[in-house]
């Protein structure tokens, strides 16, 4: 294709075809013709602008073939469902391994490998699962109750104590035994009534016993299967993991819900959220999580459809409540804790820091939860006057320097969060200003994430920390608020200890009836709205950009990362 042919003889009509044919992959192959479009630039810029977006072709019937490239920031760590503890790994495992159960978008349980939700014994201790008939692994071997038992054994059976499973704490505590009366039936006996059992532990990807069963516990930690699973039970099977670059997966024709439409699903590792935005624009990736700050940059891109929904992810800050720590005495009085929260204009934080993509929290439970109480006993809205009167009433009066003090102790402390998280950094700045306005001297201090985690779970010399957290579908929040998790390694780093809170949380864990649980969590939310040991600032929104050629995705609060019951139904309109 010479310069003359394109530029002079064929005209715009030809040039349009030429552009369409010019895929990025052929860049160098066609570099010889590069002069052609340069020659055009002078006269044809408007034309080029006009044809830049292009309208997506919509086909109503799904068709087989093609691929989807999903972008994300983190590489995976393992593909073994019993060893993983990070979101990225769980997300990719979810594409290749199905559990007994799965979540609907709202977090309700639905059967996956199980034919139905399990039958529960009257005492609430025994769950009986029936597997779907004719389940097969990707290699054609049947998926039986033995595989299910084996999978759970890795994390609860003392025989497998050497398997480094992050799930051992819970599973070994709650599972008494697993029986397999026949290849389709799994009977799990639990040691005590534990309401979140199914929601927390019924979704682990089922592993093939015929591949891993012969390995010793120690060998399972380092099995090749963890990095290159030869056999899978989910919609896709494993092709390759090029570390730091991508995981490639291909259609599993033996999938119980029907073979996926797509030939391949590719999980691609990207440097950061800016790269996700750029590559959604260029079409290098089809699906990717979008930073709130990038939302507007993508909204105008005609090839990308935006999906936005509330998620159980939240940002909160915690006061040091251990009186033996330097700042502990400052926060013992709930009036101080409430006053500081009243002084924060959280709606402005949502608007300015999250560009409106979030929701001010009224409660410690997320709005996505069935247990959420929108109007708990104490509803804290931005009210500077109230904040000042609360502090005055509690005896914290302004000194000559404008800083409040009581009995010679100044209301002065340091706030920590992890450096590099722009939103959290901005929030600390806003808090510093807002609290300065009511005579409180709070200084931000940015530290590395590992140091922040150390501070929260063990060292605990902080005054106040700000961090994010993510709940599962069950409304149990005891990891943050139960006194038993104030021990080293637990996440109750604020050292919040309250008998009434403990009782409510324990009762709710031992109650199976959802209506009764909801009441208990309602009372708990009322209590927390009054005590405010660690106020939740806001609940985040999940935002995904999806290329318009991709059909059949259905992101939702609980169908975001690992649990995507719709993944086998995703297809692409252009078949590429």
């Amino acid at each position, binding site marked *: 294709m010479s310069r003359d042919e394109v530029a002079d003889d064929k005209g715009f009509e030809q040039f349009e075809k030429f*552009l369409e044919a*010019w895929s*990025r*992959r*052929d*860049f*160098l192959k*066609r570099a010889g013709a590069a002069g052609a*479009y340069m020659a055009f630039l002078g006269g044809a810029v408007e034309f*080029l*602008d006009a*044809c*830049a977006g292009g309208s997506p072709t919509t086909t109503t019937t799904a068709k087989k073939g093609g691929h989807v*490239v999903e972008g994300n920031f983190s*590489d995976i*760590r*393992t593909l073994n469902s019993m*060893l993983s*503890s990070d*979101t990225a790994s769980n997300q990719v495992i979810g594409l290749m391994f199905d559990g007994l159960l799965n979540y609907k978008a709202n977090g309700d349980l639905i059967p996956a490998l199980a034919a139905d939700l399990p039958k529960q014994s009257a005492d609430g201790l025994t769950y009986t699962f029936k597997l779907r008939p004719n389940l097969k692994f990707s290699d054609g071997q049947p998926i039986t109750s033995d595989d299910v038992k084996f999978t759970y054994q890795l994390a609860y059976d003392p025989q497998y104590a050497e398997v480094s499973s*992050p*799930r051992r*704490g819970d599973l070994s505590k709650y599972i008494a035994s697993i029986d397999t009366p026949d290849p389709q039936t799994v009977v799990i006996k639990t040691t005590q009534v534990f309401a979140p059992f199914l929601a*927390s532990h019924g979704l682990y990807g089922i592993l093939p016993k015929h591949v891993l069963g012969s390995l010793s516990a120690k060998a399972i930690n*380092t099995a090749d299967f963890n*990095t290159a699973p030869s056999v899978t039970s989910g919609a896709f099977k494993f092709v390759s993991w*090029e*570390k*730091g*670059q*991508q995981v*490639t997966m291909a259609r599993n024709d033996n999938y119980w819900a029907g073979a996926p439409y797509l030939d*391949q699903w*590719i999980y691609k*590792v990207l*440097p950061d959220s800016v*790269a996700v935005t*750029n*590559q959604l624009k*260029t*079409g*290098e990736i089809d699906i990717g999580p979008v930073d709130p700050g990038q939302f507007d940059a993508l909204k105008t891109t005609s090839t990308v459809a935006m999906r936005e929904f509330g998620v159980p992810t939240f940002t909160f800050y915690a006061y040091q409540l251990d009186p033996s720590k330097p700042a502990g005495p400052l926060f013992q009085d709930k009036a101080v804790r409430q006053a500081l929260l009243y002084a924060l204009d959280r709606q402005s934080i949502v608007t300015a820091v999250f560009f409106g993509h979030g929701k001010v929290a009224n409660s410690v439970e997320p709005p996505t939860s069935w247990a959420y109480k929108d109007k708990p006993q104490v509803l804290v809205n931005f009210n500077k006057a109230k904040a000042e009167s609360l502090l005055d009433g509690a005896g914290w009066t302004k000194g000559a320097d404008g800083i409040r003090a009581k009995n010679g102790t100044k209301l002065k402390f340091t706030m920590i969060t992890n450096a590099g998280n722009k939103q959290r950094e901005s929030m600390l700045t806003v808090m510093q200003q807002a609290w300065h306005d009511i005579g409180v001297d709070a200084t931000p201090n940015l530290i*590395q*994430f*590992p*140091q922040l*985690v*150390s501070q*929260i*779970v*063990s*060292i605990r010399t902080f005054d106040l920390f700000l961090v994010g*957290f*993510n709940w*599962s579908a069950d409304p149990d929040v005891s*990891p*943050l608020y139960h006194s038993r998790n104030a*021990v080293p*390694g*637990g996440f109750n780093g604020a050292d919040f200890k309250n008998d009434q809170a403990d009782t409510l949380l324990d009762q709710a864990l031992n109650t199976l009836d959802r209506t009764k649980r909801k009441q208990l969590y309602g009372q708990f939310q009322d209590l927390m709205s009054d005590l405010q040991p660690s106020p939740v600032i806001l609940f985040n929104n999940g935002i995904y950009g999806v290329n318009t050629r991709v059909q059949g995705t259905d992101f939702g609060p609980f169908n975001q990362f690992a649990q995507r019951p719709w993944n086998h139904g995703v297809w692409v309109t252009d078949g590429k």
Partner: protein
Amino acid sequence: MLAKYVARRFLASLVVVLGVTLITLVLMDRTRGTYVPGIDLNPALRPEDIARLRADLGLDRPFYIWYITWIWGVVHGDFGRSMIDGSTVMSHILDRLPNTLELTGTAILIGIIIAIPVGVIGALRHGSKADHTLTVVSVAGFAVPQFWMGLILILIFSVTLEQHGLPWLPSSGAYSAVNGGDFIDRVEHLILPATVLSFFYMSTWSRFIRSSMLEVLSQDYIRTARAKGMSERRVVYLHGLRNALIPLVTLIGLELPGLVSGGLVVEVVFGWPGIGKLAFERALQYDYTTVMGVTFFATMLVIAGNLLADLLYGVLDPRIRYS
């Protein structure tokens, strides 16, 4: 003689390796706090799980015990497994080494190819407009941060070109996610990161060549060569350039570890799956074994690069003899 020299240098380098790895470990260990690598704020984890995983990684022991265990493994050719993903450290390094060599090797090559003529022109015509222009470009080369230049190139050659329906270059990775990996595909992905990196090398080295060339050209033997009636071309390239290149050999020899780590910033910005990016990410996650493995590897390369530069001196300058 030479063999003895190399052997002695090698023995001395063992001390360096021990020192560097020990310092790396102490720095990591002292700043880690009680963080357990790979453990995020995951509410599904219980305190006893975190304690057990810490013990599984050997982090419940003092760092010197950990170090001795590690050295023992290295002596036996075992670099251990990553604390984050359980893969062997060696597999991580070998997986990414080709990508890194592809990027930095290309950049260094382009850097040399451009730097030599640029430096020579600058020296021969010093004070001219061309020299001033090249000086400005070179100064820009080390003044402009690589991450910034990388982002700007991505914005122009990837996003903007694509938005206008023009042919564009991929902005991250070493090859396409789908059916990628053939030669042309890899070259397309290489263009932007290699441009940023080679610009830096070119700027640094061209300045060195320029000043070294200026110095050499003022030497007596150059005047003698000219006086003998030798052609200017022979004077500049045979007598001048060969001598002027000697300092460059040291510089490039010192860049040998840069083959592995030199592209760190560029690798991070372009999501290039290389060793620099690996080391950077794993250091932030306190993946002791991987960081130690890469450190060991990089230290060996620094030593080898220095040795190679010293030996090359002997080739370029017959006056140098090793004893």
